[in-house]
């Protein structure tokens, strides 16, 4: 992962750039207040933050699923592989190689696991043989899904559903996957398994990942770069290794107490980084 070592601002091989976007729901509720981030090609980038910080909204703004929830990007722009994408429909984006795996899995409960996977290939036009080959590939990565291929997805376990959701996204031959909260509701061991597969996909298939996660600990172990979001603003970013050592991150997100800050009054407020104004 050589791309990771450089700072994202100077990376010329970014697959995705989000420039100072603002998102408003229902014409009144301002959720994102100028978020900028860069995902390098072939990297794993983590988007961290507490509940309601705006992680999911950021991902949905990129994948353009916001429209269906009456949200819209009112400022800024989103560049995927060199062209602006904020006005494209989700299915056009999937066709271009950017797909989201939604928070809470969202498998098609009444379809079998295999049918779920096949729906991921909806936008593809390269024929049945190629799709079957990819199905085989997904089963290689997730052997468990092969065993459950004929089960209705609604009756499979949480871990299997998460695997189905990721496998389904893979079936679209993505260049980039927006992965929302993959650890949600899963046993720690399974979380580890899922993240291992994410890393494998990243290395072997060259898929870039932007993953939103509350579990800062594990996300920073697998990501190359991290952004921390707080009430709709990026407050901190850096290489994952550096973030892990950062005192504030340790205290607020990793649960490791900082020295001399026993009272809540001592907690420092983050200043917005006005990188985009510079």
């Amino acid at each position, binding site marked *: 992962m050589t791309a990771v070592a450089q700072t994202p601002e100077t990376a010329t091989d970014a697959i995705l750039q989000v420039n100072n976007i603002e998102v408003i729901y229902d014409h009144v509720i301002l959720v994102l207040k100028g978020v900028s981030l860069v995902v390098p090609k072939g990297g794993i980038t983590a988007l961290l933050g507490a509940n309601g910080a705006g992680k999911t909204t950021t991902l949905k703004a990129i994948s353009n699923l916001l429209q*269906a929830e*009456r949200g819209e990007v009112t400022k800024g722009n989103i560049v995927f592989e060199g062209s602006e994408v904020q006005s494209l429909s989700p299915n056009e*984006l999937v066709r271009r190689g950017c797909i*989201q795996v*939604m928070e809470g899995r*969202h498998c098609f409960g009444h379809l079998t696991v295999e049918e*779920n996977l*096949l*729906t991921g290939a909806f936008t593809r036009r390269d024929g049945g043989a190629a799709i079957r080959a990819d199905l085989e590939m997904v089963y290689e990565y997730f052997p468990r899904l092969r065993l459950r291929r004929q089960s209705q997805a609604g009756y499979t376990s949480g871990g299997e559903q998460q695997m189905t959701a990721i496998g389904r996204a893979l079936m679209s031959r993505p260049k980039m996957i927006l992965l929302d909260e993959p650890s949600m509701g899963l046993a720690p061991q399974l979380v580890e398994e899922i993240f291992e597969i994410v890393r494998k996909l990243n290395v072997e298939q060259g898929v870039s990942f932007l993953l939103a996660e509350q579990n800062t600990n594990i996300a920073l172990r697998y990501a190359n770069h991290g952004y921390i979001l707080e009430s709709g603003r990026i407050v901190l970013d850096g290489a994952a290794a550096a973030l892990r050592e950062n005192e504030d991150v340790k205290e607020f997100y990793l649960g490791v107490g900082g020295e001399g800050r026993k009272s809540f009054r001592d907690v420092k407020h983050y200043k917005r980084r006005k990188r985009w104004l510079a």
Partner: protein
Amino acid sequence: MDFLHDILLRPFMDMAGQPDFFIQVIWEGFVAGILYALIALGFVLIYKASGVFNFAQGIMVVFAGLTLVGLHEKGVPAWLALILTIGVMALLAVCIERFVMRKLVAQPDIILLMSTIGMTYFLVGLGEFVFGGEPKQMITSQLGLPTGSTAVEMGERGLIIFQHIDIAAAVIAIIMVAALAVFFNRTRIGRALRAVADDHQAALSVGISLNQIWAIVWFAAGIVALTTGIMWGARSDVSFALEIVALKALPVLILGGFTSIPGAIVGGLIIGIGEKIGEIYWGPLVGGGIESWLAYMIALIFLLFRPQGLFGERIIERI
């Protein structure tokens, strides 16, 4: 005692006493049930794919039948009129998707229901404006549908009469349901339709175009409506009164479940046969006319004891 005898015994004695008549009644109910089932099928298709309760399904039946007959009246040959009508239903589907569904996506269900009521009256107006409001004769023989009837003798017990058009209706309904089942389970678009039915958001996220799916499903419902319109029109005539009959699909749906195609069929048959038998054998007790409300009573009882219907999908939810 006489009263109990009339309710509990006499009807069955009548049935046993005149089996040919009894079978005839069941057959009549069966055919009516098939037509109810077809209308319910149109509802189910749209409800599954978009969660919209399409109040306009009844008027779509009338509109399709009216377009077909109207075009033929204007001198278009029957086969061409049929093709043109299919084209009109496709156009209607695209327009509904483009100008109604797309604008109202993510709005509460009640707004979508209201929009379909709006569509109903729009189609009533459009149909009357273009083709006139008076009832029309269906062009049964011009479409190559059989018109005669066959009498089957039952030994010395009498005979049963089967209208050929009724047999044709049953066969066509079976073919259509089989075709839909194959379409839903074996094709890429069918799979996408079921995916949309399960989870809109997720379908959107994997790149399924809801607009395309909705247009397809409204078109499919339009084709079902056209078939129903032809069959029903052949039995009586093509008129706006059919729209009221189409509301019989509601008890059918409550019985069969809103999301189930087999449910629509079984529900349709139960309602169709049940109300005919009820009317003939129990109707005279209250002076007749129970056919028009019996279905709703059955639906009410079902709502109390099995609200998801006979075949309704239970919601799969992990706890």
